[in-house]
Protein backbone atom coordinates (compact mmCIF):
# COMPACT_ATOMS: atom_id res chain seq x y z
CA UNK A 1 0.00 0.00 0.00
CA UNK A 2 1.09 3.59 -0.63
CA UNK A 3 1.32 5.90 2.35
CA UNK A 4 2.35 9.50 2.88
CA UNK A 5 4.57 10.33 5.80
CA UNK A 6 5.57 13.84 6.82
CA UNK A 7 9.06 13.56 8.26
CA UNK A 8 10.95 16.68 9.38
CA UNK A 9 8.50 18.82 7.39
CA UNK A 10 9.01 16.92 4.13
CA UNK A 11 6.49 14.63 2.48
CA UNK A 12 7.56 11.11 1.63
CA UNK A 13 5.37 8.88 -0.51
CA UNK A 14 6.32 5.33 0.42
CA UNK A 15 5.25 1.84 -0.64
CA UNK A 16 4.86 -0.28 2.49
CA UNK A 17 3.13 -3.41 3.74
CA UNK A 18 0.68 -2.89 6.61
CA UNK A 19 3.15 -4.77 8.84
CA UNK A 20 6.04 -2.43 8.01
CA UNK A 21 7.20 -0.87 11.25
CA UNK A 22 7.71 2.89 11.30
CA UNK A 23 11.42 2.62 12.06
CA UNK A 24 12.04 0.57 8.90
CA UNK A 25 10.01 3.01 6.81
CA UNK A 26 12.10 5.87 8.20
CA UNK A 27 15.47 4.14 7.78
CA UNK A 28 15.14 1.97 4.72
CA UNK A 29 12.45 3.66 2.64
CA UNK A 30 12.90 7.33 3.53
CA UNK A 31 16.66 6.80 3.92
CA UNK A 32 16.95 8.64 7.23
CA UNK A 33 19.37 6.43 9.13
CA UNK A 34 19.87 8.72 12.12
CA UNK A 35 17.12 6.79 13.88
CA UNK A 36 18.59 3.51 15.11
CA UNK A 37 17.27 0.00 15.73
CA UNK A 38 18.69 -1.41 18.94
CA UNK A 39 16.65 -4.13 20.60
CA UNK A 40 13.63 -4.12 18.27
CA UNK A 41 11.51 -5.06 21.32
CA UNK A 42 10.54 -1.59 22.64
CA UNK A 43 13.06 -1.87 25.46
CA UNK A 44 16.07 0.23 24.47
CA UNK A 45 14.66 3.46 23.03
CA UNK A 46 17.28 3.80 20.25
CA UNK A 47 14.44 4.12 17.72
CA UNK A 48 12.75 7.02 19.54
CA UNK A 49 11.26 9.70 17.27
CA UNK A 50 8.71 12.43 17.91
CA UNK A 51 5.17 12.12 16.62
CA UNK A 52 3.32 15.42 16.95
CA UNK A 53 5.90 16.42 19.57
CA UNK A 54 5.61 13.24 21.66
CA UNK A 55 8.41 10.70 21.97
CA UNK A 56 7.46 7.22 20.77
CA UNK A 57 9.34 4.02 19.98
CA UNK A 58 9.20 3.68 16.21
CA UNK A 59 9.85 -0.09 16.36
CA UNK A 60 6.47 -0.47 18.05
CA UNK A 61 4.22 1.42 15.66
CA UNK A 62 3.19 0.50 12.13
CA UNK A 63 4.25 3.03 9.51
CA UNK A 64 0.71 3.26 8.20
CA UNK A 65 -0.43 4.54 11.63
CA UNK A 66 1.86 7.57 11.38
CA UNK A 67 0.05 8.98 8.36
CA UNK A 68 -1.27 12.46 9.03
CA UNK A 69 1.19 13.10 11.87
CA UNK A 70 4.28 15.28 12.05
CA UNK A 71 7.25 12.97 12.52
CA UNK A 72 10.53 14.44 13.75
CA UNK A 73 13.77 12.47 13.64
CA UNK A 74 17.19 13.52 14.87
CA UNK A 75 17.96 14.82 11.36
CA UNK A 76 15.16 17.37 11.79
CA UNK A 77 16.55 19.10 14.87
CA UNK A 78 19.40 21.25 13.56
CA UNK A 79 18.25 24.35 11.70
CA UNK A 80 20.38 26.12 9.07
CA UNK A 81 23.52 24.37 10.22
CA UNK A 82 22.91 25.37 13.85
CA UNK A 83 22.65 22.50 16.33
CA UNK A 84 19.48 22.23 18.41
CA UNK A 85 20.15 23.29 22.06
CA UNK A 86 19.88 19.67 23.18
CA UNK A 87 22.37 18.52 20.55
CA UNK A 88 24.68 21.32 21.61
CA UNK A 89 24.56 20.33 25.26
CA UNK A 90 25.17 16.65 24.39
CA UNK A 91 28.26 17.86 22.53
CA UNK A 92 29.44 20.18 25.28
CA UNK A 93 28.82 17.76 28.16
CA UNK A 94 30.08 14.80 26.13
CA UNK A 95 26.74 13.02 26.56
CA UNK A 96 27.84 10.09 24.43
CA UNK A 97 30.49 7.44 24.14
CA UNK A 98 29.87 5.15 21.14
CA UNK A 99 26.91 7.30 20.04
CA UNK A 100 24.50 4.48 19.20
CA UNK A 101 21.85 5.43 21.78
CA UNK A 102 22.35 9.16 21.24
CA UNK A 103 19.62 9.93 18.67
CA UNK A 104 17.04 8.16 20.84
CA UNK A 105 18.27 9.90 24.00
CA UNK A 106 18.11 13.28 22.27
CA UNK A 107 14.60 12.72 20.91
CA UNK A 108 13.37 11.60 24.34
CA UNK A 109 15.05 14.65 25.86
CA UNK A 110 13.03 16.86 23.47
CA UNK A 111 9.80 15.42 24.91
CA UNK A 112 11.04 15.66 28.52
CA UNK A 113 12.07 19.30 28.19
CA UNK A 114 8.77 20.15 26.54
CA UNK A 115 6.37 18.20 28.78
CA UNK A 116 7.94 17.46 32.16
CA UNK A 117 8.33 19.91 35.00
CA UNK A 118 10.38 18.05 37.62
CA UNK A 119 13.86 17.85 36.11
CA UNK A 120 15.75 17.22 39.34
CA UNK A 121 18.40 14.60 38.83
CA UNK A 122 16.68 11.65 40.54
CA UNK A 123 13.45 12.22 38.64
CA UNK A 124 15.26 12.85 35.37
CA UNK A 125 16.98 9.48 35.72
CA UNK A 126 13.59 7.81 36.17
CA UNK A 127 12.19 9.60 33.13
CA UNK A 128 15.05 8.21 31.05
CA UNK A 129 14.26 4.61 31.94
CA UNK A 130 12.98 3.74 28.48
CA UNK A 131 16.40 4.35 26.92
CA UNK A 132 19.47 2.20 27.42
CA UNK A 133 23.10 3.20 26.97
CA UNK A 134 25.23 0.07 26.69
CA UNK A 135 28.36 2.18 27.33
CA UNK A 136 26.69 3.08 30.65
CA UNK A 137 27.44 6.72 29.95
CA UNK A 138 24.39 7.88 31.84
CA UNK A 139 26.08 10.49 34.01
CA UNK A 140 26.98 12.75 31.11
CA UNK A 141 23.63 12.14 29.40
CA UNK A 142 21.85 13.32 32.56
CA UNK A 143 24.23 16.29 32.79
CA UNK A 144 23.59 17.19 29.14
CA UNK A 145 19.81 17.16 29.55
CA UNK A 146 19.98 19.13 32.83
CA UNK A 147 22.21 21.62 31.08
CA UNK A 148 19.84 21.97 28.13
CA UNK A 149 16.95 22.57 30.53
CA UNK A 150 18.83 25.56 32.01
CA UNK A 151 19.36 27.00 28.54
CA UNK A 152 15.65 26.57 27.88
Amino acid at each position, binding site marked *: *MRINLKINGENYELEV*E*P*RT*LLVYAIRELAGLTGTHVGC*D*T*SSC*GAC*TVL*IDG*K*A*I*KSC*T*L*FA*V*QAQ*GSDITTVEGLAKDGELHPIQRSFKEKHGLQCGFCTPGMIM*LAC*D*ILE*NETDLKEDNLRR*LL*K*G*NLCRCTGYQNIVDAISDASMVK
Partner: protein
Amino acid sequence: MIPAPFEYYKANSTDEALKLIRDFGEEAKFLAGGQSLIPMMKVRFARPTKLIDISKVQELRYISLDGDYIKIGGLTTHRELEKSSIIIEKIPVLAHCAHEIADIQIRNVGTIGGSLAHADPSADYPPVVLALNAVIVAKSIAQEREIPINDFFLEAFTAELRPDELLVEIKIPVMKPNEKAAYIKIGHPATGFSVVNCAVKITLDKEKIEKARVAFGGFVTVPYLDEKVGEFLIGKPANIDTITQASELVAEGREVIGDYYADADYRRHLAKSVFVRVMKKALEI
Protein backbone atom coordinates in the same frame (compact mmCIF):
# COMPACT_ATOMS: atom_id res chain seq x y z
CA MET B 1 11.36 -8.75 13.92
CA ILE B 2 8.50 -8.73 11.49
CA PRO B 3 4.89 -9.59 12.30
CA ALA B 4 2.95 -12.02 10.13
CA PRO B 5 1.08 -10.28 7.30
CA PHE B 6 -2.36 -8.86 7.99
CA GLU B 7 -4.97 -6.73 6.31
CA TYR B 8 -5.20 -3.20 7.67
CA TYR B 9 -8.46 -1.34 8.20
CA LYS B 10 -8.66 2.11 9.72
CA ALA B 11 -11.81 2.98 11.65
CA ASN B 12 -12.71 6.68 11.92
CA SER B 13 -15.48 6.23 14.47
CA THR B 14 -16.65 3.78 17.13
CA ASP B 15 -19.56 2.69 14.94
CA GLU B 16 -17.28 2.01 12.01
CA ALA B 17 -14.97 -0.07 14.25
CA LEU B 18 -17.90 -2.08 15.65
CA LYS B 19 -19.32 -2.79 12.19
CA LEU B 20 -15.94 -4.02 10.99
CA ILE B 21 -15.46 -6.35 13.99
CA ARG B 22 -19.01 -7.71 13.55
CA ASP B 23 -18.28 -8.52 9.91
CA PHE B 24 -14.80 -9.98 10.49
CA GLY B 25 -15.38 -11.95 13.69
CA GLU B 26 -12.59 -13.51 15.71
CA GLU B 27 -9.91 -13.33 13.02
CA ALA B 28 -9.74 -9.55 13.54
CA LYS B 29 -8.27 -7.59 16.43
CA PHE B 30 -8.55 -3.96 17.43
CA LEU B 31 -5.31 -2.01 17.31
CA ALA B 32 -5.40 0.75 19.94
CA GLY B 33 -1.98 1.92 21.19
CA GLY B 34 -0.44 -1.38 20.15
CA GLN B 35 2.17 -1.31 22.91
CA SER B 36 1.30 -4.89 23.94
CA LEU B 37 -0.24 -6.15 20.70
CA ILE B 38 2.58 -5.14 18.35
CA PRO B 39 5.34 -6.77 20.48
CA MET B 40 3.20 -9.93 20.63
CA MET B 41 2.74 -9.83 16.87
CA LYS B 42 6.48 -9.34 16.34
CA VAL B 43 7.27 -12.55 18.21
CA ARG B 44 4.19 -14.08 16.54
CA PHE B 45 2.39 -15.01 19.75
CA ALA B 46 -0.44 -13.08 18.11
CA ARG B 47 -1.21 -13.51 14.40
CA PRO B 48 -4.45 -11.68 13.65
CA THR B 49 -5.21 -11.74 9.93
CA LYS B 50 -7.06 -8.42 10.10
CA LEU B 51 -6.32 -5.37 12.22
CA ILE B 52 -8.86 -2.65 12.83
CA ASP B 53 -6.91 0.48 13.70
CA ILE B 54 -8.92 2.51 16.20
CA SER B 55 -6.00 4.66 17.34
CA LYS B 56 -7.37 7.78 15.63
CA VAL B 57 -10.96 7.48 16.91
CA GLN B 58 -10.96 10.78 18.79
CA GLU B 59 -14.42 10.27 20.33
CA LEU B 60 -12.93 7.55 22.57
CA ARG B 61 -10.29 9.86 24.00
CA TYR B 62 -11.60 11.90 26.91
CA ILE B 63 -11.56 12.36 30.66
CA SER B 64 -14.71 13.91 32.09
CA LEU B 65 -16.38 14.41 35.44
CA ASP B 66 -19.99 13.19 35.50
CA GLY B 67 -21.61 13.39 38.94
CA ASP B 68 -19.87 10.94 41.28
CA TYR B 69 -17.89 9.32 38.47
CA ILE B 70 -14.91 10.14 36.33
CA LYS B 71 -15.46 8.77 32.85
CA ILE B 72 -12.40 7.85 30.85
CA GLY B 73 -12.52 7.06 27.14
CA GLY B 74 -10.89 3.75 26.29
CA LEU B 75 -8.31 5.36 24.01
CA THR B 76 -7.01 7.78 26.63
CA THR B 77 -3.26 7.28 26.89
CA HIS B 78 -1.36 6.59 30.10
CA ARG B 79 0.51 9.89 29.70
CA GLU B 80 -2.77 11.80 29.33
CA LEU B 81 -4.01 10.17 32.55
CA GLU B 82 -0.87 10.89 34.55
CA LYS B 83 -0.92 14.54 33.43
CA SER B 84 -4.69 15.10 33.71
CA SER B 85 -5.58 17.78 36.23
CA ILE B 86 -9.00 16.16 36.84
CA ILE B 87 -7.41 12.78 37.60
CA ILE B 88 -4.69 14.31 39.78
CA GLU B 89 -7.34 16.15 41.79
CA LYS B 90 -10.13 13.57 41.97
CA ILE B 91 -8.37 10.17 41.79
CA PRO B 92 -4.67 10.83 42.42
CA VAL B 93 -3.87 7.13 42.83
CA LEU B 94 -4.82 6.57 39.18
CA ALA B 95 -2.47 9.33 38.01
CA HIS B 96 0.29 7.72 40.06
CA CYS B 97 -0.50 4.29 38.62
CA ALA B 98 -0.44 5.60 35.04
CA HIS B 99 2.92 7.23 35.73
CA GLU B 100 4.33 3.90 36.94
CA ILE B 101 3.65 2.21 33.59
CA ALA B 102 6.70 1.41 31.47
CA ASP B 103 8.38 4.57 30.12
CA ILE B 104 7.45 7.92 28.55
CA GLN B 105 7.42 6.59 24.98
CA ILE B 106 5.08 3.72 25.83
CA ARG B 107 2.88 5.95 27.99
CA ASN B 108 2.52 8.37 25.05
CA VAL B 109 0.94 5.65 22.91
CA GLY B 110 -0.49 2.94 25.17
CA THR B 111 -4.12 3.29 26.20
CA ILE B 112 -6.02 2.40 29.38
CA GLY B 113 -8.69 0.55 27.40
CA GLY B 114 -6.09 -1.47 25.52
CA SER B 115 -4.21 -2.34 28.68
CA LEU B 116 -7.34 -3.47 30.53
CA ALA B 117 -8.62 -5.51 27.58
CA HIS B 118 -5.19 -7.17 27.29
CA ALA B 119 -5.61 -8.27 30.96
CA ASP B 120 -1.94 -8.89 31.63
CA PRO B 121 -1.78 -10.14 35.24
CA SER B 122 1.43 -8.14 35.78
CA ALA B 123 0.07 -4.87 34.42
CA ASP B 124 -0.31 -1.77 36.60
CA TYR B 125 -3.98 -0.92 36.21
CA PRO B 126 -5.73 -4.13 37.38
CA PRO B 127 -5.23 -3.82 41.17
CA VAL B 128 -5.96 -0.10 41.00
CA VAL B 129 -9.23 -0.37 39.08
CA LEU B 130 -10.25 -3.29 41.33
CA ALA B 131 -9.57 -1.26 44.48
CA LEU B 132 -11.37 1.76 43.03
CA ASN B 133 -14.41 -0.36 42.13
CA ALA B 134 -14.41 0.76 38.50
CA VAL B 135 -17.06 -0.11 35.94
CA ILE B 136 -16.11 -1.18 32.43
CA VAL B 137 -18.33 -0.12 29.54
CA ALA B 138 -18.21 -2.46 26.54
CA LYS B 139 -19.99 -1.85 23.28
CA SER B 140 -20.92 -3.98 20.31
CA ILE B 141 -23.05 -3.04 17.34
CA ALA B 142 -26.00 -4.73 19.07
CA GLN B 143 -25.68 -3.40 22.60
CA GLU B 144 -23.78 -1.51 25.25
CA ARG B 145 -23.26 -3.05 28.69
CA GLU B 146 -21.60 -2.24 31.98
CA ILE B 147 -19.33 -4.81 33.61
CA PRO B 148 -18.46 -4.49 37.32
CA ILE B 149 -14.69 -4.70 37.69
CA ASN B 150 -15.02 -7.69 40.06
CA ASP B 151 -16.30 -9.71 37.08
CA PHE B 152 -13.88 -8.36 34.48
CA PHE B 153 -10.57 -10.25 34.83
CA LEU B 154 -11.24 -13.90 33.99
CA GLU B 155 -7.88 -15.55 33.30
CA ALA B 156 -4.37 -14.46 32.42
CA PHE B 157 -4.75 -12.31 29.28
CA THR B 158 -8.49 -12.89 29.20
CA ALA B 159 -11.07 -10.30 30.15
CA GLU B 160 -14.86 -10.41 30.14
CA LEU B 161 -15.19 -9.04 26.62
CA ARG B 162 -16.92 -10.77 23.74
CA PRO B 163 -15.20 -11.04 20.36
CA ASP B 164 -17.44 -8.34 18.87
CA GLU B 165 -17.12 -5.92 21.80
CA LEU B 166 -14.93 -2.88 22.25
CA LEU B 167 -13.99 -1.49 25.66
CA VAL B 168 -15.20 2.08 25.17
CA GLU B 169 -15.15 3.58 28.66
CA ILE B 170 -13.96 3.15 32.23
CA LYS B 171 -16.06 4.72 34.99
CA ILE B 172 -14.39 5.31 38.32
CA PRO B 173 -16.05 6.73 41.45
CA VAL B 174 -14.55 10.03 42.54
CA MET B 175 -12.63 9.81 45.83
CA LYS B 176 -14.46 11.26 48.82
CA PRO B 177 -12.65 13.13 51.62
CA ASN B 178 -12.86 10.13 53.98
CA GLU B 179 -11.49 7.74 51.35
CA LYS B 180 -7.78 7.01 51.08
CA ALA B 181 -6.05 5.08 48.32
CA ALA B 182 -2.54 4.06 47.34
CA TYR B 183 -0.71 1.87 44.86
CA ILE B 184 2.76 0.32 44.99
CA LYS B 185 4.47 -1.86 42.43
CA ILE B 186 7.58 -3.92 42.89
CA GLY B 187 8.69 -4.24 39.30
CA HIS B 188 11.16 -6.64 37.79
CA PRO B 189 14.31 -4.53 37.45
CA ALA B 190 14.81 -5.33 33.76
CA THR B 191 11.31 -5.65 32.32
CA GLY B 192 9.49 -3.33 34.73
CA PHE B 193 6.57 -5.77 34.92
CA SER B 194 5.15 -6.31 38.40
CA VAL B 195 6.56 -9.07 40.55
CA VAL B 196 3.96 -7.96 43.05
CA ASN B 197 1.65 -4.97 42.91
CA CYS B 198 -1.05 -3.89 45.30
CA ALA B 199 -3.67 -1.15 45.53
CA VAL B 200 -6.01 -0.28 48.37
CA LYS B 201 -8.95 2.01 48.87
CA ILE B 202 -9.94 2.56 52.49
CA THR B 203 -13.08 4.32 53.67
CA LEU B 204 -12.62 5.83 57.11
CA ASP B 205 -15.24 6.51 59.76
CA LYS B 206 -13.24 8.75 62.10
CA GLU B 207 -10.39 6.50 63.35
CA LYS B 208 -12.00 3.25 62.21
CA ILE B 209 -11.98 1.49 58.86
CA GLU B 210 -15.51 1.43 57.49
CA LYS B 211 -14.81 -0.23 54.14
CA ALA B 212 -11.71 -1.64 52.50
CA ARG B 213 -10.92 -2.79 48.99
CA VAL B 214 -7.54 -4.48 48.73
CA ALA B 215 -6.36 -5.78 45.35
CA PHE B 216 -3.27 -7.55 44.08
CA GLY B 217 -1.58 -8.48 40.84
CA GLY B 218 1.75 -9.74 39.60
CA PHE B 219 2.06 -12.89 41.69
CA VAL B 220 -1.21 -14.52 40.62
CA THR B 221 -2.49 -15.50 37.18
CA VAL B 222 -5.56 -13.31 37.63
CA PRO B 223 -5.45 -9.95 39.44
CA TYR B 224 -7.93 -10.16 42.30
CA LEU B 225 -9.73 -8.36 45.09
CA ASP B 226 -8.58 -9.90 48.37
CA GLU B 227 -11.90 -10.13 50.18
CA LYS B 228 -10.48 -11.92 53.22
CA VAL B 229 -8.12 -9.04 53.91
CA GLY B 230 -10.82 -6.48 53.13
CA GLU B 231 -13.32 -8.07 55.50
CA PHE B 232 -10.76 -8.37 58.29
CA LEU B 233 -10.09 -4.63 58.13
CA ILE B 234 -13.73 -3.57 58.51
CA GLY B 235 -14.48 -1.98 61.87
CA LYS B 236 -10.84 -2.11 62.99
CA PRO B 237 -8.84 0.95 64.05
CA ALA B 238 -6.73 2.38 61.23
CA ASN B 239 -3.36 1.67 62.82
CA ILE B 240 -0.22 -0.36 62.31
CA ASP B 241 -1.37 -3.28 64.49
CA THR B 242 -4.44 -3.76 62.32
CA ILE B 243 -2.33 -3.61 59.17
CA THR B 244 0.20 -6.13 60.48
CA GLN B 245 -2.53 -8.57 61.50
CA ALA B 246 -4.31 -8.19 58.15
CA SER B 247 -1.09 -8.80 56.24
CA GLU B 248 -1.03 -12.39 57.56
CA LEU B 249 -4.18 -13.07 55.52
CA VAL B 250 -2.77 -11.80 52.21
CA ALA B 251 -3.07 -14.40 49.43
CA GLU B 252 -4.27 -17.03 51.90
CA GLY B 253 -5.40 -20.08 49.97
CA ARG B 254 -4.26 -18.55 46.66
CA GLU B 255 -2.00 -20.25 44.19
CA VAL B 256 1.04 -18.02 43.76
CA ILE B 257 3.13 -18.09 40.61
CA GLY B 258 6.90 -18.22 40.71
CA ASP B 259 9.73 -18.19 38.23
CA TYR B 260 13.49 -18.16 37.97
CA TYR B 261 13.70 -14.56 39.17
CA ALA B 262 11.19 -14.61 42.00
CA ASP B 263 9.90 -17.90 43.36
CA ALA B 264 6.43 -18.38 44.80
CA ASP B 265 7.48 -18.25 48.48
CA TYR B 266 9.35 -15.01 47.91
CA ARG B 267 6.42 -13.43 46.08
CA ARG B 268 3.98 -14.47 48.80
CA HIS B 269 6.25 -12.92 51.43
CA LEU B 270 6.72 -9.82 49.30
CA ALA B 271 2.95 -9.44 48.81
CA LYS B 272 2.41 -9.22 52.59
CA SER B 273 5.17 -6.67 52.93
CA VAL B 274 3.93 -4.60 49.98
CA PHE B 275 0.43 -4.64 51.46
CA VAL B 276 1.79 -3.15 54.71
CA ARG B 277 3.59 -0.44 52.76
CA VAL B 278 0.54 0.41 50.63
CA MET B 279 -1.68 0.65 53.72
CA LYS B 280 0.78 2.93 55.48
CA LYS B 281 1.03 5.07 52.39
CA ALA B 282 -2.76 5.31 52.01
CA LEU B 283 -3.36 6.10 55.67
CA GLU B 284 -0.27 8.31 55.90
CA ILE B 285 1.01 6.53 59.02
